[in-house]
């Protein structure tokens, strides 16, 4: 997804680039084709359902991160702040609203069409609701379909929650989609798409779990968001997604066979020195510089929570063709940010263990309460449970004012030094590292 100039690319990355270019082209042609456009969020996305109505999804968070990477976000954020948005609030929202005010130019330079439907899948983040309440006023007359996803406050999905979700799908979301698309809901079509979803999900899990190998053939954070994960959201349920993940899976298998490490924008990482689990979103405005600090030090991220905001498939969930609506509901409720704090701690502690990580790092995002509130407690818990050194850095998603390269680099260098010393001590004690 991320367009990193001059980066070294594998075949899967080229396929992905083409798929995304086609999508944006299609979005640019909606006036001619009459295709309807649905704005919605990545966590708890109903991609299959949207596609089953032949509508096109647009993800404002992805637009925002793309704006961050294209160095446009500072301007967009300023624009939103002029409108009265505080410096303190989620910068994705401000970036998106600023982009809209500045003509809604998408990542490929084409103007994005306005929404025909705002699908507020209110999953795992309170701000989503505020975001779309604002968009509803900026796009007057556009219908909003609200899907309220209950939080897994008790660490599980209850039958009552499931029933609440399915009722909302049947009585609120689907009727609005029918009305906007002018098409009747087709359960068979949705169900068939879910066969593809489950196939892609199996492949995605295998790819992400390949990081258990030493050396890891992938970087499950930077590459995870750069080329492994993004296709998932917009294309899940399609043949193209299955083809893409099949190709990627073979590439990763080949890397394992050859004993190769992950691909970075500057080629192959030579030596894997440190294996890390990372919690929190990355910074997008300085994505490449940020990543480079890691690969220059031989640090590979073997598992991350951010790649699970669109679904924690490694815990076993798959879209199920036999119960399409129920599985959409379960999918929404299962996303990482919809898990309670003890679940998040358990998941991360398991990652540290299963992926044999040397350390646990948090990139805390200034403007994201959903992730950040409670992270310091997560850090203590992981340190306590797993015994690995923990690190903590701070940045922002798309506000460049809060990315201090020198500061982050200093902190990371000290952290890697500590990890290095620990490795020496452990190996002197005869512990396998």
């Amino acid at each position, binding site marked *: 997804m991320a367009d990193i100039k001059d980066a070294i690319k594998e075949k899967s990355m080229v396929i992905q680039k083409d798929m995304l270019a086609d999508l944006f082209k299609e979005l640019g042609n909606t006036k001619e084709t009459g295709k309807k456009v649905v704005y919605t969020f990545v966590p708890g996305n109903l991609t299959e359902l949207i596609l089953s109505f032949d509508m096109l999804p647009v993800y404002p968070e992805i637009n925002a991160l793309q704006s961050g990477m294209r160095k446009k976000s500072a301007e967009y954020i300023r624009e939103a702040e002029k*409108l*009265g*948005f*505080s410096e*303190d*609030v*989620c910068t994705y*929202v401000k970036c998106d609203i600023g982009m809209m005010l500045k003509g809604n130019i998408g990542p490929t330079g084409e103007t994005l069409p306005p929404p025909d439907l705002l699908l*507020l899948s*209110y999953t795992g*983040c*309170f*701000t989503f*609701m*505020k*975001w*779309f*309440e*604002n968009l*509803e*006023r900026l796009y007057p007359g556009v219908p*909003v379909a*609200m899907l*309220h996803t*209950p*939080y897994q*406050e*008790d660490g599980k999905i209850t039958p*009552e*929650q499931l*029933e*609440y979700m399915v*009722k*909302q799908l049947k*009585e*609120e979301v689907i009727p609005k989609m029918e009305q906007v698309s002018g098409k009747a809901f087709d359960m068979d079509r949705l169900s068939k798409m879910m066969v593809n979803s489950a196939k892609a999900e199996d492949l995605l899990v295998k790819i992400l779990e390949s990081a258990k190998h030493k050396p890891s053939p992938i970087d499950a954070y930077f590459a995870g968001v750069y080329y492994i994960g993004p296709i998932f959201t917009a294309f899940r349920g399609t043949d193209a997604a299955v083809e893409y993940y099949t190709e990627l899976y073979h590439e990763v298998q080949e890397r394992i066979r050859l004993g190769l490490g992950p691909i970075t924008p500057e080629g192959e990482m030579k030596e894997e020195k440190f294996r890390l689990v990372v919690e929190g979103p990355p910074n997008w405005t300085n994505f490449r510089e940020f990543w480079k600090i890691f690969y220059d030090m031989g640090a590979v991220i073997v598992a991350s929570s951010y790649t699970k905001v669109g679904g924690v498939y490694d815990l076993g969930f798959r879209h199920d063709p036999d119960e399409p609506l129920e599985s959409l509901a379960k999918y929404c409720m299962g996303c990482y940010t919809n898990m*309670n*704090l*003890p679940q*998040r*701690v358990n998941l991360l502690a398991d990652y540290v263990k299963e992926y044999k990580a040397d350390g646990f790092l948090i990139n*805390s995002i*200034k*403007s994201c*309460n*959903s992730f*950040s*509130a*409670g*992270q*310091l*407690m997560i850090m203590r*818990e992981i340190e306590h449970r797993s015994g690995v050194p923990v690190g903590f850095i*701070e940045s922002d998603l798309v506000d460049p004012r809060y990315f201090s390269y020198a500061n982050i680099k200093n902190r990371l260098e000290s952290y890697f030094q500590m990890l290095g010393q620990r490795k020496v001590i452990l190996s002197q004690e005869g512990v396998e590292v």
Partner: protein
Amino acid sequence: MKQLDALLAHCTEQAFDLHFSKARQWKAAEPGRLLLGFLPIYFPREIVHAVNGMGVGIMGVGDRKQIIKGDAYYQSYICHLPRGVIEMALDNSLDDFDGFVFPAICDCVRNLSGMFKLVERGKFQRYFDYPQNFSPSIGGVFFRQELEKVLDDLFQVNGVKLSTEKLNHAIGLYNTNRKLIEHIYQIRQDYPWRLSAVDTYHIIRAGLVMTVEEHNQILEQVVEVISEERGEPLDNIRVVISGSFCEQPPIGLLKSIEMAGCYIVDDDLMLGSRWIQGDVDDKSDDPLGAIVDAYLTKSTFSSAVYDVGNPKGDRLVKLVKERHADGVIFSAASFCDPALLDKPEMQKACDAAGIPQINFQFHENTGQFKVIKEQAGTFSDSIKLWA
């Protein structure tokens, strides 16, 4: 007069009793009683009352407690309220509580519920998800199930089953409570000099930490006193405060606004105590259903509630007009996404209706009010000048 002074002194003390002494004494007085702590904004305390419990509001520590441990749990860019609450939990101020409810308002409160689980405070800790779907057969059913979960938690603690009679009785008491609070606001609307906003605040906040029966008595006496003329009218403007529904501004801030020449004729400070507008049916065969119905149809506007179809901005404008207010002060806690993300649209609605506004941000422990006082003073002067 003396009577009111004594009441005010009592409420002022209770409102900021971070040891919750009254509630603890109440619990200790009889076996089988329980305390349920709830965070902002709203929780139907009626159901707790009906099972021999007291719903106690935990509104943060304000500027009354030094935060030591709490800061180690929160980054600087997270609002202040949760760090004070976790501080209280860690220094055992909340030990007598049997359980905690964290009503859905934002991800900070949501994640705080998980922190309480991790540090194992209380016998249960529930994030309480309010439905954002307002159809009785969808959101209504869900809300009822949420209430039943809490009732079940409470049952596990003291074994008291909910009865129709007891719940109807509790509903009646809280109806009275809200009616009396509303009466005070009505009197203040016409005669704001009779009771200051700070005193009003103390009186209502005190109601979160004592029995509703005692609070109703206090409110009745207050209504009685302020129904008579007292104090001197000043040449003040009339304002509505918006955005302070969760983390509470320090008392100094409210005082500064008043001293700068503004009568605060409405606000969302103790919004939870005024959430349901009007009465909940207290004669129903299904009182739990009556609470659900009241939530779906009689809730006030709030950043916690999805508002497409009934925008908050319009409802704020309506409130300003009903209260004959001259302007709005948007006063939100720093880093409070719900309040701050709602602000631009609410400001726009005020602009469209020709309602002047100012805005500032605070922390519950802000100690400097000079700038705010100046800002409010200029606001007041400009309104008077152009009136």
